[in-house]
């Protein structure tokens, strides 16, 4: 599996491996392929475009039949509503965004701090029943969240962690640690152990060798791994809705879900909130695009 997304998304024509499509089908086939690809791209991207469009429409136009694609009044009111409440001051949505930043941020840092050293140790040292341990670690990710939420809830009840940011942070960390270990182990495997051996011959301890020579080489990998942990915590809904309830703790996904089911649905606001909420994830995903495959498969598919 000698692949990385780096190559997959490469636009460098010099490394083009594409077999020439012109040999048999000729130009016609190529045009057909482009046409199909364009249609598929349009279908996949239309909902996103429609969401952005809805976020800048007046509510009157949102419900218009037939739908208005171009001739509508542009307004930024919905975006204003995302951040400010009608009476001035911060809206509860913006508070939930801040909560999301705290919960996702702290849990990501924790998962990284716990996961990276463990990944290094699993990669470098002989550990008893290593394969079993690694599979066990992975399998904790297989549990349906709806199932785990019940015992977690009972446990948090005893510990007083219900409806606290700490509670969410802990469970998100626990869900991100297996992922971090698996993905980071791959990155560590790629750094030759000889670097550390050489350093130790120079008199460094193993720990120092790790810190001064291996860790700097791992930084890009750590960044990529952290972004994926961040995305998971950022988008998570099930734990958030069952373990929290107050405005001051609630993260953005349940807050956005709460925008419907009142007396009127402000789809413009829903769309604007969704756009604002999705932006950080899209930016981060773009930044780590080279590691996307490893990121979404817990490192199971990678170079």
């Amino acid at each position, binding site marked *: *599996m000698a*692949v*990385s*997304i780096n190559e*997959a*998304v490469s636009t460098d024509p010099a490394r083009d*491996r*594409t*077999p020439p*499509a012109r040999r*048999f089908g000729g130009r016609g086939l190529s045009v057909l*392929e482009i046409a*199909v*690809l364009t249609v598929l*791209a349009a279908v*996949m*991207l239309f909902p996103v475009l429609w969401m952005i469009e809805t976020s800048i429409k007046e509510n009157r136009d949102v419900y218009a*039949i037939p*739908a208005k694609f171009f001739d509508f009044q542009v307004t930024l009111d919905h975006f204003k509503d995302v951040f400010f409440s009608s009476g001035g001051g911060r809206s509860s949505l913006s508070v939930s965004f801040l909560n999301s930043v705290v919960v996702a941020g702290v849990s990501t840092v924790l998962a990284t*701090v*716990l996961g990276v*050293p*463990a990944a290094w140790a*699993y990669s470098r*040292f002989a550990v008893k029943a290593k394969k079993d341990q690694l599979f066990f*670690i992975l399998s904790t990710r*297989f*549990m*349906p969240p*709806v*199932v*785990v939420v*019940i*015992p977690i809830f*009972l*446990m948090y009840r005893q510990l007083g962690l219900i409806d606290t940011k700490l509670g969410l942070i802990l469970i998100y*960390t*626990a869900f991100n*640690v297996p992922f971090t*270990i698996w993905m980071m182990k791959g990155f560590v495997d790629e750094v030759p152990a000889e670097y550390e051996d050489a*350093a*130790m011959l120079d008199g*460094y*301890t*193993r*720990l*120092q060798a790790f*810190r001064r*020579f291996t860790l*700097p080489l791992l*930084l890009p990998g750590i960044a990529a791994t952290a972004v994926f942990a961040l995305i998971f915590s950022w*988008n998570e809904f099930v734990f958030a809705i*069952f373990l929290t309830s107050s405005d001051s703790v609630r993260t953005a996904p349940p807050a*956005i*879900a709460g925008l419907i089911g009142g007396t009127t649905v402000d789809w413009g606001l*829903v769309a604007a909130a*969704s756009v604002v909420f999705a932006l950080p994830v*899209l930016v981060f995903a773009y930044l780590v695009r080279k590691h996307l495959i490893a990121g*979404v498969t817990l490192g199971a*598919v990678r170079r």
Partner: protein
Amino acid sequence: MSDPVPLTTDHPGQVASATPPAPGWSRRLSDRWLTVAFISPALLLLLAMSVFPLLWALYLSFTDYSATRGGSAHFVWFENYTAILTSAQVHQRALTTLIYVVGAVTLQTVLGFTIAYLISRRTHGRGLLTTLFLIPMMLSPVVVGLFWRFMLDAQFGVINSMLGSLGLGQVEWLTRQQTALISLILVDTWQWTPFIMLIALAGLTAVPKYLYEAASIDRASEWFRFRTITLPLVWPLLLIAVLFRAIEAFRLFELVYILTSGGPGVSTETLSFHVYKVAFLGFNTGTASAYGILMVLIVIVLTQLYLRYLNKLKED
């Protein structure tokens, strides 16, 4: 949960000091100590937050405990399990889940591979295309569910509006038995086709060029090359992608909760959604725990079988 190693106290990027201190302990001892110190915090967290709750659920699954009614838990042993396994309600949800998982994953695989194949044959704009195609996958399931509910609304939704412009009638996307399940599959497919595409693309671009060159010397047909060179090399990667998707689809909750809340009637209630109702409507914690344990067992057993099959495939 304290940081076991002061990873961040200095800047590891620079190898500033060139005077290494003398090693204090013997290397072996230090390695063992490091292993324990580095692995145990992570394992302890997993024990506390994943294993312990699971074992607790296992214990509760043998009782009639209810989280709200309080009182002590009475052992009913396997009665929860037999009740679940023999319940017609559960069988119905299992069938719904099966249709949903098979339908969604199949559709995603076909579409994702097609897109990847088409992209891999382009010379220009690959990076841009790939990035654009990936957007749906990055969105929160809540956002995806809400927005598709808006778009699929029979009266005000843009999909029916467009169908209307084409002279087609209104489709009840979310309120008819068959269409609701199809809508669920379609929305999941929209969000997760990029996942398959991404992995397939990785496989496709990795096919060594010399194989194609050899094939073109043989004047092999396009289809022949696809079937004998491309597919066999991409196949293992695709199977892994399918496994990941199937596990995720099996756990699906958010989309059902937001898009259809199981309706019409109970026709789009998946196992995940049903276990939620058992757990939170009547707070039948014992039953819900047994239900959850069974779901985890299914995932683990099926995954093991599948991986074993994959390994066998590889060996052949």
